[in-house]
């Protein structure tokens, strides 16, 4: 699996993602500057990392979504290539309409950094193939604008097609406001597009990929992607 991590001005989880992917699946990872107009030849997975691209000054992810590299990312996605947006990367994906919805300020109106429990709701995606359905994993969150919002009718569509891949839950896997840190609709933490090749999530799997940092649930996430790409690597079909 050949991975490209896009670096926008203000990205700050780019090196973390590069470290985690190399450490867990040992694949080739290329850093791609946002001014580039092409992805490295043979890229299987594109990651838009977390951070505060352009300071998140207008709306989180808005300016990065208009960066030169995003044309190539869209083209890659259009051909069924995998795209993963984490945190600010998720915000960039919704801002560029590669994913539906929008990320609004947390219900607390403050930044929140803490470990969260997530249930894996859909294992039929290139990113979650090695998990069990309903499995509870622990990934930390660290964001100010993480409240996932979608108008009611679109939300229905998303849920009906199994687009909500991760949901905030209790350690025992039970939902509820108490376990939904930011007020996301239906406690949604991560979603996938109808074709299944674009995933956006607010929690950080790269921060849960080493025992010394307190958790390893993220390793299965990276291995899922790697195993999908090893088996062919493009996703075209509808879920």
């Amino acid at each position, binding site marked *: 699996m050949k991975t490209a991590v896009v670096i926008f*001005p*203000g990205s*700050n*989880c780019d*090196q*973390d993602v590069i*470290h*985690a992917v190399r450490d867990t699946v040992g694949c080739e990872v290329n850093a791609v500057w946002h001014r580039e107009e092409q992805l490295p030849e043979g890229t299987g997975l594109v990651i838009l990392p*977390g*951070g*505060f691209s*352009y*300071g*998140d*000054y207008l709306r989180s992810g808005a300016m990065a979504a208009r960066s030169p590299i995003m044309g190539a990312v869209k083209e890659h996605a259009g051909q069924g290539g995998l795209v993963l947006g984490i945190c600010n990367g998720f915000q960039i994906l919704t801002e560029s309409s590669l994913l539906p919805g929008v990320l609004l300020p947390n219900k607390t109106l*403050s*930044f*929140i*950094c*803490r470990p969260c429990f997530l249930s894996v709701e859909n294992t039929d995606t290139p990113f979650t193939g090695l998990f069990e359905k309903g499995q509870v994993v622990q990934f*930390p969150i*660290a964001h*100010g604008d993480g409240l996932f919002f979608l108008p009611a009718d679109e939300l229905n569509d998303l849920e009906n097609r199994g687009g909500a891949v991760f949901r905030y839950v209790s350690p025992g896997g039970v939902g509820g406001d108490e376990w939904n840190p930011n007020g996301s609709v239906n406690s949604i933490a991560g979603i996938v597009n109808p074709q299944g090749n674009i995933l956006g999530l607010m929690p*950080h799997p*790269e*921060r849960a990929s*080493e025992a*010394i*940092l*307190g958790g390893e649930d993220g390793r299965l996430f990276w291995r899922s992607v790697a195993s999908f790409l090893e088996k062919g690597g493009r996703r075209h079909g509808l879920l």
Partner: protein
Amino acid sequence: MDFSKYGIRKEEFAAAEAALGREPNECELRILGVMWSEHCSYKSTKHLLKHFPTRGPKVVLGPGENAGIVDLGDGLGAAFKAESHNHPSAVAPYQGAATGVGGIIRDILALGARPVASMDGLFFGDPEHPRTGHLSAGIVKGVGDYGNAVGVPTVGGKTVYDPCYNENPLLNAFCIGLVELDKIVSSQTARPGQLVVLLGSKTGRDGIAGAAFASVELSEDAKESRPSIQIGDPFAEKMLIEACLELKEKNLIVSMQDMGAAGITSSSSEVAAKSGVGMKLHFDRVPLRAADMEPWEIALSESQERMLLIVAPEHMEEVSSVARKWELDCAVIGETEEGDDYSIFFHGEKVASLPATLIGDGCPPIHWPSEKPADFETRWDFDLDGLPAPGDWNAAMLSLLGNPSMTPKRWIFEQYDSMVQLNTVSGPGHPVSVLRIKGRESLIGLVFDADPWKCCLDPFRGGAETVARTVRALSVAGAEPLGLTDCLNFPSPEVPGQYWALEECIEGMAAACGALGCPVVSGNVSLYNETKSGAILPTPVVGTVGLIPSPEDFLPCGAWEEGDLLFLVGPCNPSLAGSLYIRSLGRPEAGRPLEFSGEAEKDFSERALRTARKKAAHSGRALAGGGLAAALAKDSAESGCGARIALGIPTRKDVVLFGEGGARALYSVPMSRVPLFKAIWSGYPCLELGRAGGDVLSVGGAFSLAVSRIQEIWRNN
């Protein structure tokens, strides 16, 4: 000449006149007024700071540079420093705190180090005071928004509440960075014939004369008299970090200095003076945000996110191209030359000409009158017999554990990204923050601590206790202390009793540093922390850095296991003087803190390090605020495990449980390691307390609390 309106004293004007052989002009006076302010010149404390031990086998760079550096082994160094941003945070809490964080990050960056972690010292007023909510919320959000965006995790800190900070909250920011020892960038290496380059944001009217503002008491009308406050731009700072580190990697810079207080003048004259060169600056070449700025405004602007670089002419083109990549302004504003003359030109006209060494070092020091307050020793009167033991022990415990200075402060640290950069092994909420170093075995331990109440009751002992506390915490965690940084937050030095307390505190800290072999490598002094409604308590804050050889050598806290034996090591004669318990009872501070014993502290530290390295315990915690009772409660709550304790000693239980001070720690030891543990601590006071287990924490004859009850108190605080 009315020099007083520029904040210049008579003898200072005379010194300037003597050095120049003429009267300084207005622009020069404005420059000297700021550069010779307390904040920039340390004129009241320079001679006192000489008491600190600053050398040691691990010290690579001591005080005098942008930050200190200690040796982590194998060619890697840790650059660290703490700095106060108190006055700005008092009048504009959000921006004041944000720019405080930005400033300390640039101090670390200036050495060519990549900033890897921050900590914050927060001193807020009484939670019930009407201003405290607003000030604390703004300061916390400012620290978080800046650090989070710039991608430097805030991994720990210290938060204290006391009415003395009602009008004058303190913000102390700590930052640590990593640098290869052979790639340290210095501010002392400029040579004649090189270019002076300004990199980063444009220069505006923000924070002009902020340093002078920080050198007087906060007045009632601070809001009107404040200089236009600096606005932080963490996005620009992130670009600046990446650009500077890229320039360093490509060997494109000769010398570098960050721009904080007194802006261009301070940074450029420091580089000139330290490097022994002269400098010609052309202020019409400075990229400006407001077109009509006067030369003196450009000289003293404290616009944020700027660095001063010294570049060899042949590298300038490449420097410009790196700046363009990171979307930063970059301008050659002058050149270095032989000699000591520091001159400023504006559209071809010379507007200031001063010897570089005069600007930084020429201010005559001030020895303020120092006097121990006549009634000082009445503070030591403490009638223990007049203090009844708690009638309701459980209620006393709950009140202590709910004290805002005691709670874990989740509401604060969850607003900080404590994990970015993937190094945080032990983050906020723990007495020691631990970072791994990627690609290496060893870990870094960090502690940030303060105890203003003990410093108030006995500044010498309190100062020593503050330093000792950080070293104890590191030692128990298995970290060998390498060095420390300090922020000395004090009220006006012009009051003899207050100057005396400052002297005593420094003496006490220096004594502890010496005894524990933990030198001071950097620091900062913030005076005049007082308002009409009163002065702050003497508040020295200490940030100490230690090294843990490998992950196996790190001993965590809050890791009791069922069946472990609990031990208290250290003397059973703590003091209630300046304790959190007395404050939680609402009683006035009184009594005398324990005497500092260098020998006992050293002995304790060595045994604690051995305990960690030989894995003689599951869990260890140095006792601090709230004493043994608080340590038991914290460990129990974090472990999710109770304990039955019997205190088989004749001393009053409230004193043993709630007393503070001295080299003491609580350990949980698995049965199989008990003989080893006892052997390590043989010859040092060591008391078996009881056994861990169950879901209730009880101390015979005192309190009995469900572990879940303690967890609940702390869950949302």
